[in-house]
C-alpha cells in the first residue's frame, strides 16, 4: 500500500503582474476564438496552449487530451491599470490612511509598533484581526498633515461604483497604483496585509488572467453553431476595448476619449469579476439574461463552493422507489435484480478466492451474479460480455481486480433525503429481489422518516475494504437502533406492527394449534410450549401472550404501563383491569398488552431494555421476529377500517347535538353579557380578548364532550379505536372529528376573524360574534360539512400548510448553521472537546464524559438494577 499524499496547507494571496506573466502560457491578443475550419486561433481566446476541449486535439502545453489536461492560464496585458472591484473598499481605506506625497501610513512609529503587536497576538490566538485593522485605518485617517513629510492631506471622496475623487479631481488607477507602490513593507503589515503575498498595488490590475478553456467550454448547438461561455463573451469584450484603447492612445486621441475608453475597460473588467456590483449595470447576454461571471460562479447554493466542492457526485449508487417488506430483517434491504447487475463490488484475485472469482467471471455480465469489468494488473480494463467471459475467466491471474455484481450479503449504504441526522444513512445487507423497487422492513422507516407513498431512496456501494468494515461496524441498522438524541430506540414497530401485537396480546386471546403454527412460522422455534388449556371441545389452546413471549429474549424482566393506560386515579399496577400494566418475567409476558409503549419507535420500552441488556444483535433479532409475528398477528385477526366504522348510534348523535346546542347557547349568553357590559375582564386582558377566550374555552369543552360521548359508543371492537388506543396511528381526537364534531377552526390560535369588514362571510350579519360565524364546525367529517363550515375548515387547513412550508425552510437553515458551527468538534483522547483553533470548548464532554446514546448505563436506574441482580441472585 502506498502512503497517501495529503495536502498540508493552502496559502491565499494576490498575484503580482510580473509573477502572472511568468505563469501565463500565452499572451492573448485577438478576440477571435475559432477559425472557419473550426480550429482554435493562436493567441486567441481558445489558444490550444490554454488547454483543449475538442476531442482529437492535444494541449500544446502539456500534451494532454481533453479530460486529461486541466487547462493552463493565459494573460491579457492591459493598456492601462484597472481597479479590482473586490478591493474597492480596501483601496478607499488605504488611500485615506496614507500620505498623498510620501505614501507612508500616517501613524506614529510607536502606534504602528503597538498595532502590529496586537495583530500578531490575534493571529497567534486564531482570532479575527478585522477590528484592529479597522482601528488602524480610522486612526491613520485623522491627521491633517503627514507626520513624516509634513505634506497637508486632502479629503478623498469615494463615489460609487469606483471613483476616488481628491480635491475635485478623479484619481486614475495609475495614480493610485503609483501611491501604493511607495508604501513601505512595514506599513503594509500594520494595515493587516502580508507584503510577501499581497502588496496593496496588486489590487490594481495591470495584467488580466485568462482562465483556461476547460473552465469556459463552448458548446456546439444542434444547428452546428458554436455557443460560447459567458466568461468567453466577457473576455472578448475586454480584448476589443483594450485594443481600441491602445489604438486611440497611439494615435494621440484627445484626453476625453481616452478617459471614456478607460472607464469602459474598467466596466468590462468589473463585470467580468462580479456582475452584481451595485451601481454598475449588469452585463447582459444578447437575449437579455445577465451574464454569469466569476463571482456568480462561486456564490450561493449551486455555486462552486457549496454546489461542486462541498457536495460531490459519486459512482456506484442507485436510486428508486421504496416499498415495504415485513419479512426482511431490519438489517437488510431488497435490491432489484436490474440494479444489482449494474452495481459492483471490486474484488482482488488471490490464491484462495481464485476459483470462486473465476466462476463469477464465467457468468459474464448477463447472468447474476456475474462480473462487469476485469482490471488486469497493468491497469487495463476489460468489459466482460457473454462472448469474452470464458476467455477472460481462463486468463484470470492473481493480482487482477474484478468488479463483481452486487449479490446477497454485500454491505451497502442506504440513504433518504433530507439527511437530517446520522440515522438517515445506514448500512444494510443486500438481498437481491425481483421487481423494481428497493424493499425495506417498515420498522426502519422512522429513522429515515420514510413512507411508501412514492418516496425514493439512494443506495451506495462501498468500494474499499476499509469502507465496508466501517459501514459494517459503525453504520449497520442494528448499531443505530438507539438514537444519540435521547438515548432511546428510534427503530421500532409502527402502524400494523403495533396493532398486530396489540390484537395478539390484549386480554386472553386464544389461539389454536393451527394458528400458533401460522404465527410462529417464520420464527426460529423448534418446540411448541405446553398449551395453556383445553377448550370446550377438548382441543388445546394457547394464549396470545404466550405466543408473543416467544419473541422476547430470555432474561428480560420489566414492568411498565402500556400506552393505552387509562391514567386511572390510582394505578392498580399488576391488578390492572384494563390489561394495561405490562409485566415481563424472564422473557415471559405475564400480564399486560404489548403496544406502542413496548415496541413502538421512539418509545418502545421493551426494545430499549432488550438492546441495553443484551446488545444490538439480539435486539435486531428481536425486531425481526417481532415484526414477523406482529404482521401475522394482525392477519390472523383481520383488520380493516371503513366509513361505517365512524357510525355512531342515533342516541349518541342526539346527545352530541344537545351538547353542541347548549354550547352555542352558552356562547350566545356570553355575547349578550358582553353586549350588556356585564362581562368581567380577566386580569391583564381587554374585554374583547376576554370574550374571545371564554368563547374558545366553551367551544373547546363542547368538542371534548362530544368526543367522550362518541368514545362511549366506540369500543375496542372498533378498528379506529384500536389504532388510536394502541398508539399505532391516529388519536381519539381524529376519531372524534370523524364521528362526532370537527370543532373550532383557528388561525393563529384565535377564532377566524378575517374576511370582510365586521364579518367573515356575506352569509352573516355585521358584527355577528356567534360560534358559527367564526369558524366553529359542528358537523363531523362523516356527516359532512355545511358550505360555510367547509370554507372555515379550508382556512384553518391552509394555515397549517403555510406553517409547514415556512418551518421546513427555517429549520433547514437552523440545522445548516448548527452543523457548520459545530462540525469540527470531536472528543480527544484526553476527554476534552476542542475546536480547530485548538481552543478547549469542554474539559470533559457533557461534564461527565457520558455518550448520550449510552447514557442509561451511567444512571441511577442501572445501579438499582445491578444491586437487585447481585443481591437477589445471591440471596436465593
Amino acid at each position, binding site marked *: 500500500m502506498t502512503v497517501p499524499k495529503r495536502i498540508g496547507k493552502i496559502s491565499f494571496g494576490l498575484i503580482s503582474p510580473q509573477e502572472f506573466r511568468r505563469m501565463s502560457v500565452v499572451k492573448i491578443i485577438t478576440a477571435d476564438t475559432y477559425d472557419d475550419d473550426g480550429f482554435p486561433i493562436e493567441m486567441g481566446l481558445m489558444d490550444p496552449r490554454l488547454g483543449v476541449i475538442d476531442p482529437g486535439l492535444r494541449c500544446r502545453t502539456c500534451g494532454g487530451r481533453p479530460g486529461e489536461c486541466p487547462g493552463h492560464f493565459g494573460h491579457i496585458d492591459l493598456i492601462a491599470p484597472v481597479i479590482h472591484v473586490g478591493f474597492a473598499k480596501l483601496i478607499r481605506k488605504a488611500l485615506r490612511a496614507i500620505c498623498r506625497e510620501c505614501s507612508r501610513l500616517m501613524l506614529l512609529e510607536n502606534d504602528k509598533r503597538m498595532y502590529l503587536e496586537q495583530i500578531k497576538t490575534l493571529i497567534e490566538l486564531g482570532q479575527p484581526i478585522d477590528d484592529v485593522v479597522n482601528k488602524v485605518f480610522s486612526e491613520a485617517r485623522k491627521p491633517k498633515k503627514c507626520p513624516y513629510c509634513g505634506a497637508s492631506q486632502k479629503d478623498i471622496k469615494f463615489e460609487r461604483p469606483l471613483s476616488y475623487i481628491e480635491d475635485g479631481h478623479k484619481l486614475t488607477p495609475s495614480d493610485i497604483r503609483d501611491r501604493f507602490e511607495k508604501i513601505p513593507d512595514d506599513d503594509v503589515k500594520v494595515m493587516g496585509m502580508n507584503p510577501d503575498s499581497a502588496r496593496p498595488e496588486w489590487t490594481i490590475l495591470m495584467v488580466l488572467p485568462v482562465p483556461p478553456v476547460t473552465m469556459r467550454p463552448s458548446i456546439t448547438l444542434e444547428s452546428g453553431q458554436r455557443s460560447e461561455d459567458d466568461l468567453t463573451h466577457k473576455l472578448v469584450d475586454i480584448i476589443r476595448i483594450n485594443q481600441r484603447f491602445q489604438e486611440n492612445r497611439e494615435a494621440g486621441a484627445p484626453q476625453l476619449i481616452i478617459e471614456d475608453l478607460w472607464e469602459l475597460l474598467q466596466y468590462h473588467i468589473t463585470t467580468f469579476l462580479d456582475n452584481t456590483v451595485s451601481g454598475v449595470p449588469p452585463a447582459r447576454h444578447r437575449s437579455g439574461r445577465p451574464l454569469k461571471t466569476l463571482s456568480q460562479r462561486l456564490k450561493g447554493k449551486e455555486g462552486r463552493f457549496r454546489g461542486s466542492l462541498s457536495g460531490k457526485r459519486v459512482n456506484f449508487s442507485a436510486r428508486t422507489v421504496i416499498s415495504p417488506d415485513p419479512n426482511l430483517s431490519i438489517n437488510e434491504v431488497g435490491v432489484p435484480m436490474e440494479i444489482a447487475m449494474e452495481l459492483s463490488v471490486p474484488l482482488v484475485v488471490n490464491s484462495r478466492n481464485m476459483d470462486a472469482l473465476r466462476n463469477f467471471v464465467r457468468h459474464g455480465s448477463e447472468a447474476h451474479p456475474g462480473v462487469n469489468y476485469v482490471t488486469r494488473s497493468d491497469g487495463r480494463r476489460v468489459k466482460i460480455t457473454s462472448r469474452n467471459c470464458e476467455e477472460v475467466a481462463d486468463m484470470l491471474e492473481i493480482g487482477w481486480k474484478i468488479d463483481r455484481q452486487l449479490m446477497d450479503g454485500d454491505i451497502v449504504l442506504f440513504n433518504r433525503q433530507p439527511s437530517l441526522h446520522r440515522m438517515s444513512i445506514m448500512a444494510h445487507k443486500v438481498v437481491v429481489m425481483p421487481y423494481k423497487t428497493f424493499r425495506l422492513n417498515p420498522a426502519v422507516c422512522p429513522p429515515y422518516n420514510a413512507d411508501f407513498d412514492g418516496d425514493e431512496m439512494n443506495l451506495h456501494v462501498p468500494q474499499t475494504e476499509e469502507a465496508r468494515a466501517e459501514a459494517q461496524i459503525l453504520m449497520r441498522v442494528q448499531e443505530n437502533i438507539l438514537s444519540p438524541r435521547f438515548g432511546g430506540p428510534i427503530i421500532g414497530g409502527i402502524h400494523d406492527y403495533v396493532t398486530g401485537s396489540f390484537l395478539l396480546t390484549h386480554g386472553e386471546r386464544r389461539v389454536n394449534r393451527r394458528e400458533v403454527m401460522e404465527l410462529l412460522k417464520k420464527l426460529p422455534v423448534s418446540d411448541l410450549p405446553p398449551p395453556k388449556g383445553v377448550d370446550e371441545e377438548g382441543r388445546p389452546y394457547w394464549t396470545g401472550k404466550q405466543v408473543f413471549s416467544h419473541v422476547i429474549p430470555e432474561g428480560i424482566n420489566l414492568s411498565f404501563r402500556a400506552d393505552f393506560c387509562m391514567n386511572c386515579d390510582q394505578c392498580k399496577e399488576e391488578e390492572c383491569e384494563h390489561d394495561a400494566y405490562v409485566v415481563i418475567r424472564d422473557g415471559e409476558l405475564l400480564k399486560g398488552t404489548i403496544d406502542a409503549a413496548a415496541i413502538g419507535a421512539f418509545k418502545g420500552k421493551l426494545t430499549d431494555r432488550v438492546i441495553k441488556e443484551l446488545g444490538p444483535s439480539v435486539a435486531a433479532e428481536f425486531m425481526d421476529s417481532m415484526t414477523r409475528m406482529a404482521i401475522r398477528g394482525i392477519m390472523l385477526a383481520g383488520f380493516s377500517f371503513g366509513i361505517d366504522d365512524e357510525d355512531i348510534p342515533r342516541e349518541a348523535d342526539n346527545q352530541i347535538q344537545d351538547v353542541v346546542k347548549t354550547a352555542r347557547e352558552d356562547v350566545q349568553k356570553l355575547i349578550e353579557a358582553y353586549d350588556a357590559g356585564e362581562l368581567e375582564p380577566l386580569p391583564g386582558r381587554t374585554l374583547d380578548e376576554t370574550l374571545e377566550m371564554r368563547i374558545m374555552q366553551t367551544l373547546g369543552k363542547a368538542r371534548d364532550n362530544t368526543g367522550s360521548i362518541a368514545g362511549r359508543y366506540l369500543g375496542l371492537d372498533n378498528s379506529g379505536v384500536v389504532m388510536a388506543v394502541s398508539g399505532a396511528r391516529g388519536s381519539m381526537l381524529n376519531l372524534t372529528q370523524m364521528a362526532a364534531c370537527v370543532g373550532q377552526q383557528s388561525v393563529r390560535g384565535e377564532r377566524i376573524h378575517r374576511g370582510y369588514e365586521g364579518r367573515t362571510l356575506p352569509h352573516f350579519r355585521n358584527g355577528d360574534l356567534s360560534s358559527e360565524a367564526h369558524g366553529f364546525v359542528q358537523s363531523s367529517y362523516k356527516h359532512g360539512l355545511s358550505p360555510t363550515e367547509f370554507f372555515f375548515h379550508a382556512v384553518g387547513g391552509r394555515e397549517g400548510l403555510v406553517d409547514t412550508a415556512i418551518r421546513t425552510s427555517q429549520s433547514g437553515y437552523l440545522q445548516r448553521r448548527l*452543523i457548520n458551527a459545530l462540525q469540527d468538534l470531536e472528543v480527544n483522547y484526553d476527554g476534552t472537546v476542542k475546536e480547530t483553533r485548538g481552543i478547549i470548548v469542554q474539559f470533559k464532554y457533557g461534564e461527565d464524559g457520558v455518550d448520550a446514546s449510552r447514557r442509561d448505563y451511567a444512571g441511577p436506574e442501572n445501579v438499582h438494577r445491578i444491586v437487585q441482580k447481585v443481591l437477589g441472585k445471591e440471596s436465593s
Partner: protein
Amino acid sequence: MSLSHKDLLKRIDELPLLQNMKDALHDDLAEVEVTDEEFEAIARQVVEDFDRAQVVPCEAVGVVAAQSIGEPGTQMTMRTFHYAGVAEINVTLGLPRLIEIVDARKIPSTPTMTVRLDGEYARDRDLAREVAWSIESINILHLGSIATDLAEMNVLIELNEEVMAQRKISVEEVAERLSDVTKLAVGRPDDYTLTLTPKEPSYRDLLQLVEKIKNISLKGVEGIKRVVIRKEGDEYVLYTVGSVLKEVIEFEGVDPARTKTNNITEIAEVLGIEAARNSIINEANDTLREQGLTVDVRHIMLVADMMTCDGEIKQIGRHGISGEKVSVLARAAFEVTVSHILDAAIRGDVDYLKGVTENVIVGQPIKLGTGHVQLVAKR
C-alpha cells in the same frame, strides 16, 4: 460477614463514579446487609457499565449535537403560545424561540422575567403586590385620564385619587416628573388635575405632547411594562413583560438568586458568561421540552459552550462562530463566499485544512472519527 455502614460509605465514595450513581448505590445498600464479595460484584458491574457509557475518543460529538437539535426543529410549531399557566403574558416558543437563542439576539422578541421573592414577600399576597407595583413602570394612563382642551390649547390630566394612593405616588411627584421630561411648566388647577401647555399653540404639538406624556414612565422600572402575580406552590411569583434584570434584582423583597430573565445577553452582562451559558442551556431545554421533544442535555451543553467559550456570547452563524473560523475554505463554503476569499488573499491567510469542510473540498479524508487515526501501514 457484612460490611459496616461506615466502611461501605467510604468504599462507595472511592469508586470512580458520578455523584448520582454513588447516591443511588448508597440508598440501595444502606438498608441491606452486604458482604464483601457482594459489594465487590456490585462495584465491578457498576464501574464496568459506567465505563461502557463513556464517549469513545474521536467521536464527532459536534455533528451529533447539531443534528440532535436541528432534526426535531422540523417537528416544532411556529406559533407564539401563551405562557404555561399565565394567560396574560405571551412568550415566543417553538422554533422561533430556538432560532432566537442560537442567534444570540440582543433583545428577544418577548422579553420576560420570572421574579421570585424573599421570605415574607413570597408568602404574603399584599407584600408581593407591593413589590409588583414598585417594579411595574407606571404611565399616566394607569393613574387617570388624559385629554386635550382645545379651547385652552392645553393638555388636561385628571388623576384618580384612589389609584394614586394604592400605587403610592403623589400628585407632586407626577407633576415633577412630567415637567422634568417635557421641560414644560405643569399647572395644577385643583388637587387631582394637572395641565400642560405646549410652547407653540398648534394642534400638532398638542397631540404630540399627549403621546409623549403617555410614554413617560412615572414610577417603577422603565421597560417593565406589566407585572403579573401568580401563586406557585406556596409562594407568590411575579412575571413581567419586559426585562431589566440589573434594576429589578436590587429591589427590596426580590430574591436575586432565584430571579431570572429570558434575555440571555442581559444575563451575560449582569451575571457573567457562565450564567449566560447556563441560561442558554435552560432556555433551549425548556423550549424543546415544552414542544414535547426530548433532547439530551449534553447536546445543548455543547452548543452553549461553543457559543460562550470565548468569554462573550457568539451567534451560531455568519456573525459568530461560523464567521470566525480559522479556515478560509470553511468560511467561504458557508456564506458570503467571495468576500471571504478576497479578504484571505489580502491578509495572506493560510488554511491548514484541519476542519471538516476544508478536507471535503480538497477531497481528502476528514480528520474526525475513523479519519483521526494517523497510522499508516508500512509496506
